Protein backbone atom coordinates (compact mmCIF):
# COMPACT_ATOMS: atom_id res chain seq x y z
CA UNK A 1 0.00 0.00 0.00
CA UNK A 2 2.85 2.39 0.81
CA UNK A 3 4.50 1.57 -2.49
CA UNK A 4 6.32 4.50 -4.09
CA UNK A 5 8.12 4.19 -7.40
CA UNK A 6 11.02 6.30 -8.68
CA UNK A 7 10.55 8.00 -12.03
CA UNK A 8 12.15 10.80 -14.05
CA UNK A 9 10.36 14.10 -14.70
CA UNK A 10 10.05 14.73 -18.44
CA UNK A 11 8.12 18.03 -18.28
CA UNK A 12 6.13 20.17 -15.85
CA UNK A 13 3.11 22.49 -16.15
CA UNK A 14 0.44 24.26 -14.08
CA UNK A 15 -3.13 23.01 -13.73
CA UNK A 16 -5.95 24.07 -11.34
CA UNK A 17 -3.35 25.98 -9.35
CA UNK A 18 -1.18 22.87 -8.93
CA UNK A 19 2.15 22.00 -10.49
CA UNK A 20 1.91 18.77 -12.45
CA UNK A 21 4.62 16.68 -14.09
CA UNK A 22 4.85 14.03 -16.75
CA UNK A 23 6.95 11.31 -15.14
CA UNK A 24 8.55 8.35 -16.85
CA UNK A 25 8.68 4.96 -15.10
CA UNK A 26 10.51 2.55 -17.41
CA UNK A 27 8.26 2.46 -20.47
CA UNK A 28 5.27 4.13 -18.82
CA UNK A 29 4.56 7.87 -18.56
CA UNK A 30 2.09 9.20 -15.98
CA UNK A 31 0.72 12.52 -14.79
CA UNK A 32 1.98 13.26 -11.29
CA UNK A 33 1.16 16.06 -8.86
CA UNK A 34 4.11 18.10 -7.59
CA UNK A 35 2.05 19.66 -4.75
CA UNK A 36 4.41 18.15 -2.17
CA UNK A 37 7.63 18.61 -4.17
CA UNK A 38 7.09 22.07 -5.67
CA UNK A 39 10.82 22.57 -6.30
CA UNK A 40 11.16 19.45 -8.47
CA UNK A 41 12.10 20.13 -12.07
CA UNK A 42 12.70 18.42 -15.39
CA UNK A 43 15.33 15.68 -15.16
CA UNK A 44 14.86 15.10 -11.41
CA UNK A 45 13.97 11.65 -10.14
CA UNK A 46 10.96 11.66 -7.80
CA UNK A 47 9.37 8.91 -5.72
CA UNK A 48 5.70 8.74 -6.64
CA UNK A 49 2.90 7.41 -4.45
CA UNK A 50 -0.80 7.40 -5.55
CA UNK A 51 -0.11 10.07 -8.16
CA UNK A 52 1.89 12.42 -5.93
CA UNK A 53 5.64 13.01 -5.78
CA UNK A 54 6.58 12.55 -2.11
CA UNK A 55 10.37 13.06 -2.40
CA UNK A 56 13.17 13.84 -4.79
CA UNK A 57 15.73 11.05 -4.94
CA UNK A 58 19.04 12.24 -3.47
CA UNK A 59 21.60 11.00 -6.03
CA UNK A 60 24.53 11.30 -3.62
CA UNK A 61 22.80 9.16 -0.99
CA UNK A 62 21.74 6.69 -3.65
CA UNK A 63 25.39 6.10 -4.56
CA UNK A 64 26.25 5.28 -0.95
CA UNK A 65 25.40 1.58 -1.01
CA UNK A 66 27.85 1.07 -3.87
CA UNK A 67 30.53 2.88 -1.87
CA UNK A 68 29.94 0.59 1.10
CA UNK A 69 30.34 -2.46 -1.09
CA UNK A 70 33.47 -1.08 -2.71
CA UNK A 71 34.88 -0.39 0.73
CA UNK A 72 34.14 -3.96 1.81
CA UNK A 73 36.20 -5.12 -1.17
CA UNK A 74 39.08 -2.81 -0.28
CA UNK A 75 39.17 -4.04 3.31
CA UNK A 76 40.96 -7.22 2.40
CA UNK A 77 38.25 -8.73 0.23
CA UNK A 78 36.98 -10.96 3.02
CA UNK A 79 33.65 -10.99 1.25
CA UNK A 80 34.29 -12.41 -2.20
CA UNK A 81 32.11 -11.46 -5.17
CA UNK A 82 30.73 -14.96 -5.37
CA UNK A 83 30.03 -15.24 -1.65
CA UNK A 84 27.41 -17.79 -0.86
CA UNK A 85 27.22 -19.35 -4.31
Amino acid at each position, binding site marked *: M*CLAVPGRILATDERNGSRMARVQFGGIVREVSLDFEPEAREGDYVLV*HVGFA*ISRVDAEE*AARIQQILDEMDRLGG*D*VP*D*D*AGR
Partner: protein
Amino acid sequence: MKYIDEYRDEKTARRLAAKLEKLVTRPWVLMEICGGQTHTILRYGLDQLLPDQLRLVHGPGCPVCVTPLEMIDKALYLAARPDVTFVSYGDMLRVPGSKSDLLRVKAAGGDVRVVYSPLQALEIARAHPERDVVFFAIGFETTAPANAKAVWQARREGLTNFSALVSHVLVPPAIRLLLKSPGTLVQGFVAPGHVCTVMGYREYEALSREFAVPIVVGGFEPADLLEAVIMLVSQLEAGRAALENQYARSVKREGNRAARQLMTKVFKVCDRKWRGMGFIPRSGLCLREEYARHDAEHRFDLSGFSAEEPAECRSADVLQGLAEPTECPAFGKRCTPQHPLGALMVSAEGACAAYYRYRGWEVIPEGGSP
Protein backbone atom coordinates in the same frame (compact mmCIF):
# COMPACT_ATOMS: atom_id res chain seq x y z
CA MET B 1 14.96 1.29 -14.09
CA LYS B 2 17.33 3.64 -12.32
CA TYR B 3 17.15 3.51 -8.51
CA ILE B 4 15.51 0.08 -8.70
CA ASP B 5 17.69 -2.33 -10.66
CA GLU B 6 20.89 -1.65 -8.74
CA TYR B 7 19.10 -2.43 -5.47
CA ARG B 8 17.80 -5.75 -6.82
CA ASP B 9 21.17 -7.00 -8.02
CA GLU B 10 21.71 -10.56 -6.80
CA LYS B 11 25.47 -10.16 -6.38
CA THR B 12 24.94 -7.13 -4.17
CA ALA B 13 22.42 -9.05 -2.07
CA ARG B 14 24.80 -11.97 -1.60
CA ARG B 15 27.68 -9.68 -0.62
CA LEU B 16 25.49 -7.97 1.97
CA ALA B 17 24.28 -11.35 3.28
CA ALA B 18 27.88 -12.53 3.62
CA LYS B 19 28.74 -9.40 5.59
CA LEU B 20 25.79 -10.08 7.85
CA GLU B 21 26.95 -13.64 8.43
CA LYS B 22 30.23 -12.28 9.84
CA LEU B 23 28.47 -9.79 12.09
CA VAL B 24 26.07 -12.08 13.92
CA THR B 25 27.29 -13.85 17.05
CA ARG B 26 23.97 -14.32 18.90
CA PRO B 27 20.27 -14.84 18.08
CA TRP B 28 18.29 -11.67 17.38
CA VAL B 29 14.63 -11.05 16.56
CA LEU B 30 13.88 -8.12 14.25
CA MET B 31 10.62 -6.78 12.87
CA GLU B 32 10.00 -5.01 9.60
CA ILE B 33 6.95 -2.83 10.13
CA CYS B 34 5.79 -2.29 6.59
CA GLY B 35 3.86 -4.79 4.49
CA GLY B 36 5.71 -3.61 1.39
CA GLN B 37 8.95 -4.67 3.06
CA THR B 38 7.41 -8.02 4.08
CA HIS B 39 6.48 -8.56 0.45
CA THR B 40 10.07 -7.83 -0.73
CA ILE B 41 11.52 -10.17 1.92
CA LEU B 42 9.32 -13.10 0.88
CA ARG B 43 9.45 -12.37 -2.84
CA TYR B 44 13.26 -12.38 -2.96
CA GLY B 45 13.65 -15.02 -0.25
CA LEU B 46 15.76 -12.62 1.84
CA ASP B 47 14.84 -14.40 5.06
CA GLN B 48 16.52 -17.50 3.65
CA LEU B 49 19.70 -15.55 2.91
CA LEU B 50 19.94 -14.47 6.54
CA PRO B 51 22.09 -16.25 9.13
CA ASP B 52 20.12 -18.88 11.09
CA GLN B 53 20.40 -16.85 14.26
CA LEU B 54 18.41 -13.95 12.81
CA ARG B 55 14.64 -14.10 12.83
CA LEU B 56 12.44 -11.58 11.03
CA VAL B 57 8.88 -11.13 12.21
CA HIS B 58 6.40 -9.28 10.06
CA GLY B 59 4.73 -6.23 11.52
CA PRO B 60 1.31 -4.61 11.23
CA GLY B 61 2.27 -2.19 8.44
CA CYS B 62 -0.44 -3.05 5.96
CA PRO B 63 -3.34 -0.57 6.11
CA VAL B 64 -5.57 -2.92 4.16
CA CYS B 65 -4.94 -5.66 6.70
CA VAL B 66 -5.61 -3.58 9.79
CA THR B 67 -8.82 -1.92 8.56
CA PRO B 68 -11.45 -3.20 11.01
CA LEU B 69 -14.36 -5.33 9.85
CA GLU B 70 -17.00 -2.73 10.71
CA MET B 71 -15.23 -0.19 8.50
CA ILE B 72 -15.32 -2.65 5.59
CA ASP B 73 -19.00 -3.25 6.36
CA LYS B 74 -19.62 0.51 6.17
CA ALA B 75 -17.88 0.58 2.79
CA LEU B 76 -20.00 -2.34 1.58
CA TYR B 77 -23.20 -0.65 2.76
CA LEU B 78 -22.31 2.57 0.91
CA ALA B 79 -21.17 0.76 -2.24
CA ALA B 80 -24.49 -1.10 -2.43
CA ARG B 81 -26.58 2.09 -2.23
CA PRO B 82 -28.09 2.97 -5.61
CA ASP B 83 -27.29 6.68 -5.21
CA VAL B 84 -23.58 6.12 -4.42
CA THR B 85 -20.54 5.73 -6.65
CA PHE B 86 -17.95 4.12 -4.39
CA VAL B 87 -14.32 4.79 -5.27
CA SER B 88 -11.48 2.73 -3.83
CA TYR B 89 -7.85 1.78 -4.25
CA GLY B 90 -7.68 -1.68 -5.81
CA ASP B 91 -6.13 -3.15 -2.64
CA MET B 92 -9.46 -2.99 -0.78
CA LEU B 93 -11.63 -4.77 -3.33
CA ARG B 94 -11.29 -8.33 -2.08
CA VAL B 95 -10.97 -7.62 1.61
CA PRO B 96 -13.77 -9.56 3.33
CA GLY B 97 -16.22 -7.72 5.56
CA SER B 98 -18.59 -9.69 7.79
CA LYS B 99 -20.63 -10.99 4.87
CA SER B 100 -19.25 -9.86 1.54
CA ASP B 101 -16.55 -7.81 -0.22
CA LEU B 102 -16.50 -4.85 -2.61
CA LEU B 103 -15.90 -7.05 -5.63
CA ARG B 104 -19.07 -9.01 -4.92
CA VAL B 105 -21.06 -5.84 -4.30
CA LYS B 106 -19.84 -4.62 -7.68
CA ALA B 107 -20.79 -7.90 -9.33
CA ALA B 108 -24.27 -7.53 -7.83
CA GLY B 109 -24.66 -4.15 -9.53
CA GLY B 110 -23.02 -1.74 -7.09
CA ASP B 111 -21.23 1.21 -8.72
CA VAL B 112 -17.69 0.50 -7.48
CA ARG B 113 -14.74 2.16 -9.22
CA VAL B 114 -11.05 1.46 -8.76
CA VAL B 115 -8.53 4.29 -8.91
CA TYR B 116 -4.81 4.52 -8.39
CA SER B 117 -4.88 8.16 -7.25
CA PRO B 118 -7.39 10.13 -5.14
CA LEU B 119 -7.34 12.81 -7.83
CA GLN B 120 -9.21 10.37 -10.06
CA ALA B 121 -11.96 10.18 -7.45
CA LEU B 122 -12.31 13.96 -7.74
CA GLU B 123 -12.56 13.69 -11.52
CA ILE B 124 -15.41 11.18 -11.15
CA ALA B 125 -17.21 13.57 -8.78
CA ARG B 126 -16.78 16.47 -11.23
CA ALA B 127 -18.02 14.41 -14.15
CA HIS B 128 -21.06 13.01 -12.27
CA PRO B 129 -22.64 15.79 -10.19
CA GLU B 130 -25.83 13.70 -9.96
CA ARG B 131 -24.01 10.88 -8.11
CA ASP B 132 -22.90 10.78 -4.48
CA VAL B 133 -19.22 9.94 -4.89
CA VAL B 134 -17.62 8.37 -1.82
CA PHE B 135 -13.86 7.81 -1.74
CA PHE B 136 -12.47 5.13 0.62
CA ALA B 137 -9.56 7.04 2.20
CA ILE B 138 -7.35 4.38 3.69
CA GLY B 139 -3.63 4.22 4.33
CA PHE B 140 -0.79 5.18 6.60
CA GLU B 141 1.00 8.53 6.75
CA THR B 142 2.39 7.91 3.24
CA THR B 143 -1.07 8.12 1.67
CA ALA B 144 -2.69 10.63 4.04
CA PRO B 145 -1.36 13.81 2.33
CA ALA B 146 -2.64 12.71 -1.10
CA ASN B 147 -6.04 11.80 0.33
CA ALA B 148 -6.05 15.09 2.26
CA LYS B 149 -5.41 16.94 -0.98
CA ALA B 150 -8.49 15.37 -2.59
CA VAL B 151 -10.75 16.43 0.30
CA TRP B 152 -9.16 19.91 0.47
CA GLN B 153 -9.65 20.38 -3.27
CA ALA B 154 -13.28 19.17 -3.13
CA ARG B 155 -14.06 21.76 -0.46
CA ARG B 156 -12.28 24.48 -2.42
CA GLU B 157 -14.18 23.65 -5.62
CA GLY B 158 -17.50 23.23 -3.79
CA LEU B 159 -17.83 19.64 -4.99
CA THR B 160 -20.72 18.89 -2.64
CA ASN B 161 -21.23 15.38 -4.06
CA PHE B 162 -17.74 14.25 -2.94
CA SER B 163 -17.11 12.69 0.46
CA ALA B 164 -14.47 10.45 2.02
CA LEU B 165 -14.89 7.39 4.22
CA VAL B 166 -11.74 7.89 6.26
CA SER B 167 -9.91 4.95 7.82
CA HIS B 168 -6.38 6.34 8.22
CA VAL B 169 -3.97 4.81 10.70
CA LEU B 170 -0.64 5.96 12.13
CA VAL B 171 2.45 3.81 12.56
CA PRO B 172 4.16 5.03 15.78
CA PRO B 173 1.25 4.24 18.15
CA ALA B 174 1.25 0.64 16.87
CA ILE B 175 5.00 0.29 17.44
CA ARG B 176 4.53 1.70 20.92
CA LEU B 177 1.82 -0.87 21.63
CA LEU B 178 4.10 -3.69 20.44
CA LEU B 179 6.99 -2.44 22.56
CA LYS B 180 4.79 -2.19 25.63
CA SER B 181 3.30 -5.65 25.20
CA PRO B 182 4.88 -7.95 27.82
CA GLY B 183 5.18 -10.86 25.36
CA THR B 184 7.11 -8.96 22.73
CA LEU B 185 10.15 -10.73 21.31
CA VAL B 186 11.26 -7.97 18.96
CA GLN B 187 14.69 -6.44 19.66
CA GLY B 188 15.01 -4.09 16.71
CA PHE B 189 12.76 -2.49 14.08
CA VAL B 190 13.05 -1.61 10.41
CA ALA B 191 10.92 1.55 10.24
CA PRO B 192 8.78 2.17 7.14
CA GLY B 193 10.73 4.27 4.61
CA HIS B 194 7.82 5.87 2.81
CA VAL B 195 5.92 6.76 5.97
CA CYS B 196 9.15 8.44 7.12
CA THR B 197 9.58 10.14 3.73
CA VAL B 198 6.42 12.07 4.64
CA MET B 199 6.74 12.30 8.43
CA GLY B 200 10.51 12.36 8.98
CA TYR B 201 11.89 10.27 11.83
CA ARG B 202 11.72 12.38 14.98
CA GLU B 203 8.89 10.21 16.36
CA TYR B 204 11.08 7.15 15.86
CA GLU B 205 14.04 8.79 17.58
CA ALA B 206 11.78 9.28 20.58
CA LEU B 207 10.63 5.63 20.52
CA SER B 208 14.21 4.40 20.21
CA ARG B 209 15.26 6.50 23.22
CA GLU B 210 12.24 5.68 25.36
CA PHE B 211 12.43 1.91 24.87
CA ALA B 212 16.20 1.67 24.30
CA VAL B 213 15.55 -0.19 21.05
CA PRO B 214 17.46 0.17 17.77
CA ILE B 215 15.33 1.45 14.88
CA VAL B 216 16.59 1.79 11.30
CA VAL B 217 14.53 3.59 8.66
CA GLY B 218 14.67 1.21 5.70
CA GLY B 219 13.87 1.19 2.00
CA PHE B 220 11.96 -1.40 0.00
CA GLU B 221 14.41 -3.11 -2.34
CA PRO B 222 16.39 -6.23 -1.38
CA ALA B 223 19.69 -4.34 -0.90
CA ASP B 224 17.90 -1.71 1.22
CA LEU B 225 16.45 -4.30 3.56
CA LEU B 226 19.69 -6.25 3.90
CA GLU B 227 21.59 -3.05 4.65
CA ALA B 228 18.95 -2.03 7.22
CA VAL B 229 19.29 -5.45 8.90
CA ILE B 230 23.10 -5.06 8.93
CA MET B 231 22.71 -1.67 10.61
CA LEU B 232 20.35 -3.11 13.24
CA VAL B 233 22.56 -6.11 13.96
CA SER B 234 25.66 -3.88 14.21
CA GLN B 235 23.85 -1.85 16.87
CA LEU B 236 22.58 -4.91 18.76
CA GLU B 237 25.96 -6.65 18.74
CA ALA B 238 27.60 -3.47 20.03
CA GLY B 239 24.91 -2.92 22.67
CA ARG B 240 23.75 0.33 21.10
CA ALA B 241 20.16 1.52 20.57
CA ALA B 242 19.71 4.47 18.26
CA LEU B 243 17.74 5.70 15.28
CA GLU B 244 19.60 5.34 11.99
CA ASN B 245 18.49 6.11 8.46
CA GLN B 246 19.33 3.58 5.76
CA TYR B 247 16.90 5.13 3.24
CA ALA B 248 18.53 8.54 3.10
CA ARG B 249 18.06 8.86 -0.65
CA SER B 250 14.39 9.57 0.12
CA VAL B 251 14.04 10.21 3.88
CA LYS B 252 15.10 13.43 5.61
CA ARG B 253 14.83 13.99 9.36
CA GLU B 254 12.08 16.59 8.90
CA GLY B 255 10.17 14.58 6.32
CA ASN B 256 8.18 16.35 3.63
CA ARG B 257 6.98 19.61 5.13
CA ALA B 258 4.45 20.51 2.40
CA ALA B 259 2.83 17.09 2.64
CA ARG B 260 2.68 17.20 6.43
CA GLN B 261 1.19 20.69 6.44
CA LEU B 262 -1.71 19.76 4.18
CA MET B 263 -2.29 16.55 6.12
CA THR B 264 -2.57 18.51 9.40
CA LYS B 265 -4.82 21.10 7.81
CA VAL B 266 -7.39 18.46 6.77
CA PHE B 267 -6.99 15.68 9.36
CA LYS B 268 -6.78 15.50 13.13
CA VAL B 269 -5.50 12.64 15.27
CA CYS B 270 -8.22 10.33 16.63
CA ASP B 271 -8.61 6.90 18.24
CA ARG B 272 -8.86 3.89 15.95
CA LYS B 273 -9.58 0.20 16.15
CA TRP B 274 -7.09 -2.00 14.26
CA ARG B 275 -8.07 -5.36 12.88
CA GLY B 276 -6.00 -7.93 14.73
CA MET B 277 -4.69 -5.45 17.31
CA GLY B 278 -7.78 -3.89 18.83
CA PHE B 279 -8.40 -0.33 19.93
CA ILE B 280 -5.30 1.92 19.97
CA PRO B 281 -5.67 5.45 21.35
CA ARG B 282 -4.64 8.33 19.06
CA SER B 283 -3.60 5.90 16.35
CA GLY B 284 -5.56 7.28 13.41
CA LEU B 285 -6.61 10.33 11.44
CA CYS B 286 -10.13 11.75 11.05
CA LEU B 287 -11.40 14.75 9.11
CA ARG B 288 -11.48 18.08 10.93
CA GLU B 289 -14.88 19.72 11.58
CA GLU B 290 -14.42 22.18 8.67
CA TYR B 291 -14.56 19.19 6.34
CA ALA B 292 -17.66 17.57 7.90
CA ARG B 293 -19.64 18.08 4.67
CA HIS B 294 -17.13 15.86 2.93
CA ASP B 295 -17.07 13.26 5.69
CA ALA B 296 -19.04 10.15 4.71
CA GLU B 297 -19.51 9.31 8.41
CA HIS B 298 -21.57 12.52 8.77
CA ARG B 299 -23.16 12.55 5.35
CA PHE B 300 -24.65 9.07 5.75
CA ASP B 301 -25.82 7.51 8.96
CA LEU B 302 -23.04 5.04 9.63
CA SER B 303 -23.53 4.55 13.34
CA GLY B 304 -24.43 1.12 14.66
CA PHE B 305 -21.97 -0.94 12.65
CA SER B 306 -20.16 -3.50 14.74
CA ALA B 307 -18.55 -6.83 13.91
CA GLU B 308 -16.58 -9.60 15.57
CA GLU B 309 -13.45 -11.01 13.94
CA PRO B 310 -13.51 -14.76 13.14
CA ALA B 311 -12.18 -16.54 16.24
CA GLU B 312 -10.23 -19.03 14.17
CA CYS B 313 -8.08 -16.36 12.49
CA ARG B 314 -4.73 -15.85 14.22
CA SER B 315 -3.94 -12.56 12.48
CA ALA B 316 -3.66 -10.89 15.86
CA ASP B 317 -0.72 -13.11 16.89
CA VAL B 318 0.93 -12.84 13.47
CA LEU B 319 0.63 -9.04 13.46
CA GLN B 320 2.37 -8.92 16.81
CA GLY B 321 5.11 -11.34 15.84
CA LEU B 322 3.86 -13.97 18.28
CA ALA B 323 3.12 -16.57 15.58
CA GLU B 324 4.26 -17.37 12.04
CA PRO B 325 1.45 -17.45 9.45
CA THR B 326 2.04 -21.18 8.99
CA GLU B 327 1.41 -21.86 12.67
CA CYS B 328 -2.26 -21.00 12.18
CA PRO B 329 -4.36 -24.17 11.85
CA ALA B 330 -6.51 -22.56 9.16
CA PHE B 331 -3.54 -21.49 6.98
CA GLY B 332 -3.79 -22.92 3.47
CA LYS B 333 -6.85 -24.97 4.40
CA ARG B 334 -9.89 -22.96 5.41
CA CYS B 335 -7.99 -19.72 4.79
CA THR B 336 -6.53 -19.06 1.33
CA PRO B 337 -6.21 -15.94 -0.88
CA GLN B 338 -9.35 -17.15 -2.72
CA HIS B 339 -11.30 -17.55 0.54
CA PRO B 340 -9.56 -15.47 3.17
CA LEU B 341 -10.69 -15.66 6.80
CA GLY B 342 -8.68 -12.64 7.83
CA ALA B 343 -7.21 -9.69 6.03
CA LEU B 344 -3.58 -10.87 6.28
CA MET B 345 -4.49 -13.44 3.65
CA VAL B 346 -6.16 -10.92 1.35
CA SER B 347 -3.67 -8.22 0.64
CA ALA B 348 -0.50 -9.13 -1.24
CA GLU B 349 1.27 -7.25 1.55
CA GLY B 350 -0.28 -9.31 4.31
CA ALA B 351 2.17 -11.75 5.86
CA CYS B 352 -0.15 -14.76 5.35
CA ALA B 353 -0.74 -14.07 1.66
CA ALA B 354 2.98 -13.49 1.11
CA TYR B 355 3.80 -16.85 2.76
CA TYR B 356 1.08 -18.57 0.76
CA ARG B 357 2.30 -17.11 -2.52
CA TYR B 358 6.05 -17.51 -2.11
CA ARG B 359 6.31 -20.48 0.24
CA GLY B 360 3.18 -22.37 -0.73
CA TRP B 361 4.96 -25.46 -2.02
CA GLU B 362 6.76 -26.07 1.25
CA VAL B 363 4.23 -24.99 3.84
CA ILE B 364 0.71 -25.70 2.58
CA PRO B 365 -0.56 -28.48 4.82
CA GLU B 366 -2.01 -31.62 3.35
CA GLY B 367 -5.42 -30.97 1.84
CA GLY B 368 -4.54 -27.38 0.91
CA SER B 369 -4.33 -26.16 -2.66
CA PRO B 370 -1.43 -23.88 -3.51
